[in-house]
């Protein structure tokens, strides 16, 4: 399996001297779905921000065999925890279209791709409405559509199930299961990851304390308890 994301000896600390991530090592293969689990404050979101180059960390983060740069940024899709951070245009369709236009697509091609992305999320009927008028579940799927419209080869999702009801979680799970691309998901929603991720990394106080197949990790009650997950 070809490696799409490789992380070696990643360490990050804030200016105050507080160390948040220590010696993180892992890789993600093509089409693989990897979950990063950890209690609140374990460093999941910080790790994601470091992987995306939004925080400058020590160590190596290679995406598609090279350092993350503007050149390969277009091959990455990101879904933030709060959809309002991503969606701001007067209509949802424009929100999905805009990054495509910005990356040089023609207006027709961008509109076609955006419509297809919205359709795949079951949002084709709300494309003319602003994101602020949608339910949280719809907004989450809309930000996923915006990320997928650019045909990314790897998708990062930060706490995708946060504040979602059961039905919205099931809808999101269905959508994410069918995706053929590599996915890195941070969450502490274990049931959600059980049905989705093939491999889990357990983060505790900025360190990976366990890594392995999802079923194996989730059946280890002692480990989950020590990581603050149950």
């Amino acid at each position, binding site marked *: 399996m070809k490696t799409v994301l490789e992380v070696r000896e990643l360490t990050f600390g804030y200016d105050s001297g507080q160390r948040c991530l220590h010696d993180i090592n892992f890789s993600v293969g093509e089409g693989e779905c990897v979950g990063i689990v950890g209690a609140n404050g374990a460093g999941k979101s910080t790790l994601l921000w470091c992987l995306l180059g939004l925080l400058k960390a020590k160590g190596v983060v290679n995406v598609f065999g090279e350092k993350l740069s503007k050149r390969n940024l277009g091959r990455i899709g990101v879904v933030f925890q709060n959809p309002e951070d*991503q969606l701001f245009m007067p209509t949802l369709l424009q929100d999905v279209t805009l990054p495509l236009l910005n990356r040089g697509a023609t207006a027709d091609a961008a509109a076609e791709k955006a419509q297809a992305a919205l359709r795949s999320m079951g949002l084709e009927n709300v494309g003319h409405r602003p994101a602020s008028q949608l339910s949280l579940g719809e907004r989450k799927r809309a930000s996923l559509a915006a990320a997928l419209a650019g045909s990314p080869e790897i998708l990062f999702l930060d706490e995708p199930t946060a504040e979602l009801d059961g039905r919205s979680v099931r809808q999101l799970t269905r959508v994410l299961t069918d995706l053929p691309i590599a996915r890195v998901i941070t969450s502490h929603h274990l049931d959600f990851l059980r049905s989705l991720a093939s491999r889990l990394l357990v983060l505790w106080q900025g360190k990976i304390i366990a890594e392995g197949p999802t079923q194996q990790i989730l059946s280890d009650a002692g480990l989950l308890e020590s990581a603050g997950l149950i």
Partner: protein
Amino acid sequence: MKSLRIAGAVLMLAAGGGIAGLATPRWLALGLLAGLICYLAMWRSVTRALRAALPILVFALSLAAIQIIFGMPVTNLAAKAVASFFFLTSAFRMYPWADLLARVSPDSPLFPLTLYLLFVRHFFFILTSESIRLLRARSLCITKPYGRGSFRSLVAALGSLFERTLLRAERFYAAQLLRGFAE
């Protein structure tokens, strides 16, 4: 009607930008008054309008107080900031932005400016929603709006507001960066 709204919004945007060039206190006071009238006219409730303007008013008052207390030259920056806020928020509330965006082609030199205005509008939306949420939370915690502890709780709420809006702005910036807006 739409043309009038467009003209009004453009006029307010120009006034918001032009206020920075005013030097005489009399003209600045007039600008401030005109800005306040426009601003209040855009809201249905004066209380809500003033609540939404509270962070900028506190910022301006703090700035003026610091200049006076520490013996620094007292500039009219605070008044200009408030007047610009009044004009710019009024312009953002008045104009049908969806129409503007639909009219401006992505190849047009105006497109980056339109996007920038949308970013600013979204940030105002964040600032306003966070202010209203925090002030509502504060009003649920205190027994009396004025009196012992209320000033301290207001200061704490405003401090927290700046922190939260900064965090939200940072996340918004990061999200747009990843969507290719820095390319």
